[in-house]
């Protein structure tokens, strides 16, 4: 199925035909080809690359633990179109900000959205940003990113004007609804923060429905010089949902970018967060929390690419895993030859609440510069028995003692969400999830 390695010889290619057939059939089901928008060129270019390469499977190093194609091939039937919901979707939508845009299966719903954008920020169709999209159609791009581009239809661009300081977060709520049928969504978001801006953007992914669904999101964020952008991604999907998110971030000089990736479940979730520090004296902070149970599978792949001198990056991902769930953390840090005086720190910590839960963690540091302070560390363990006993010896019940410790553990990440509504929202989901 992975055609990349075999495409040079016709013979081997023929031998792969049965799989290749399956793949192109699958792609036909996944690629949505709406008519009448301006993306024809980018879409077709992306589609042709992805059709040649196929979706990544087990043999692909990057996806070897997260074999989404297999699940999709086996379970994703004839796509019937995203039908209108059987569920009351408005009931699922939290109120987190005065600026909320709601997307159902990737399409903006004016009816469910509620926004009153302050001066300095505007939302437009992504169609106005065609060149930026075309830039992503690269033979080396992530397969799912290409898949998203090949299905490009609507999508939004958030533009933050020069020097605008936006206090209220812009919250995008994506609902993937498979209550009537299997569903597929390819949400696409572009955030452009101009010079000296300050803003918080949140994306929340919620699932509803019993049928299999697949959300394949792409978010691109451009942080111009001196800007300070925070991006919060919250995944709260259900056990029927597959999710791939590609978040690509470019950070210019003296800009600060804060990423927060929180995941509370999903059948199989893959987050690719790729941050390029392109301008000197820029900074990236990456925080993550994943809380898994049952057979959930959550995979976080992060890349911080230090391309220029005098930049800092700081990464902390924490996991709480229960049931027979799987967590994957892969953190790449590249320090390019020019990137002297780099500070790059990475830490991944995990608590396994069950003997059947597994975590696979892999730091990957590649350093070409020599004046570099770089460190990484990972820990995996159970809840601390001594701490648990101390709390219980004061009369606190075992269950609440555990919750208290898990809460404190997760809070090290959550408290870095500066916006109170979003922080409370995340804490609320955390409490329900760990209290099960």
């Amino acid at each position: 199925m992975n055609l990349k390695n075999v495409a040079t010889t016709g013979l081997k290619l023929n031998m792969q035909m049965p799989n290749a057939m399956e793949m192109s059939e699958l792609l036909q089901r996944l690629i949505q080809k709406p008519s009448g928008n301006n993306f024809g060129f980018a879409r077709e270019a992306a589609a042709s690359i992805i059709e040649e390469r196929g979706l990544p499977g087990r043999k692909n190093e990057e996806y070897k633990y997260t074999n989404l194609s297999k699940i999709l091939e086996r379970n994703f039937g004839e796509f019937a179109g995203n039908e209108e919901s059987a569920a009351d979707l408005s009931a699922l939508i939290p109120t987190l900000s005065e600026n909320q845009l709601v997307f159902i299966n990737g399409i903006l719903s004016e009816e469910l959205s509620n926004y009153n954008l302050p001066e300095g920020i505007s939302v437009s169709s992504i169609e106005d940003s065609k060149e930026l999209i075309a830039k992503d159609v690269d033979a080396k791009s992530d397969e799912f990113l290409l898949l998203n581009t090949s299905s490009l239809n609507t999508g939004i661009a958030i533009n933050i004007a020069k020097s605008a300081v936006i206090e209220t977060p812009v919250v995008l709520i994506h609902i993937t609804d498979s209550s009537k049928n299997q569903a597929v969504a390819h949400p696409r978001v572009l955030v452009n923060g101009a010079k000296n801006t300050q803003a918080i953007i949140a994306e929340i992914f919620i699932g509803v429905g019993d049928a299999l669904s697949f959300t394949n999101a792409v978010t691109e964020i451009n942080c111009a010089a001196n800007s300070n952008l925070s991006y919060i991604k919250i995944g709260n999907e259900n056990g029927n949902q597959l999710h791939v998110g590609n978040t690509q971030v470019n950070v210019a000089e003296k800009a600060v970018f804060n990423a927060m990736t929180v995941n509370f479940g999903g059948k199989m979730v893959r987050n690719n967060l790729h941050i390029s520090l392109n301008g000197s004296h820029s900074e990236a902070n990456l925080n993550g929390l994943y809380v898994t149970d049952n057979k959930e599978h959550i995979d976080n792949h992060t890349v911080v690419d230090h391309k220029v001198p005098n930049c800092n990056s700081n990464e902390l991902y924490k996991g709480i895993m229960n049931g027979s769930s799987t967590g994957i953390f892969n953190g790449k840090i590249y320090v390019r030859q020019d990137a002297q005086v780099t500070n790059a720190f990475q830490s991944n910590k995990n608590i396994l609440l069950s003997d059947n839960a597994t975590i696979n963690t892999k730091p990957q540091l590649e350093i070409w510069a020599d004046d570099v302070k770089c460190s990484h560390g990972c820990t995996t363990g159970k809840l601390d028995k001594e701490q648990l006993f101390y709390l219980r010896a004061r009369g606190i019940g075992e269950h609440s003692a555990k919750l208290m410790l898990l809460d404190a553990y997760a809070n090290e990440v959550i408290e870095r969400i500066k916006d109170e509504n979003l922080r409370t929202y995340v804490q609320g989901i955390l409490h329900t999830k760990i209290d099960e």
Partner: protein
Amino acid sequence: MLKVKNLKASIEGKEILKGINLEVKPGEVHAIMGPNGSGKSTLSAVLAGREEYTVDSGSVEFLGKNIFGSSPEERAREGLFLAFQYPIEIPGVSTTNFLRAAVNQVRAHRGLPKLDAVQFLKTMKEKMQIVDIDQALLKRSLNEGFSGGEKKRNEIFQMAMLEPKLSILDETDSGLDIDALKIVANGVNTLKSADNATIVITHYQRLLDFIIPDFVHVLYNGKIVKTGTKELAYELEERGYDWIKAEHANA
């Protein structure tokens, strides 16, 4: 209040307590002394319900009930308190929040209504005075980065908040300067009443000048080998443990 009969307990197959007998009545103060490694902390851990230890035989009654069926939290709610020799640090949990949960769960067990935030703060302020502890300390993560003395004070403060029937103070005096020692001892004495009792585990007779014991026991090699009054503590201070060890060389 507490009746320990022929208690034997082990950990990882190694017998540590080899037949402890001890009775504590309301209003009494008992001191337990003994060389390092003799089993003093093990005894307190077994009484508090630490699950890593196996009770091999014997019985423990607390307030007339066998305690071996109950969890650590149930024992605490019934009124057993252990001031830890080495208080644990818990990052991310403030002393205040932790104690509010503890106090309210203990109160619920005793059929008392929850304390609301205002009442809780008021009680806290009262009890803080007893051990002269700073409120800033209580807002920080539990014991994290506390000095040795601050940790010990925090233990006694928690004791004051939880109003236990039986308190076991495991070397609460270790690491305290003389002023702190007086404050802690004074705290213990203030909380003392005719209905509650205290077991103080210590290496130093000095503490017993401030907390006057009714009985002094010597724990050696997993057994209480000698019981006396506070004069015994003076004798130990002067002569050390060699004579006791010699008497019980084949114990």
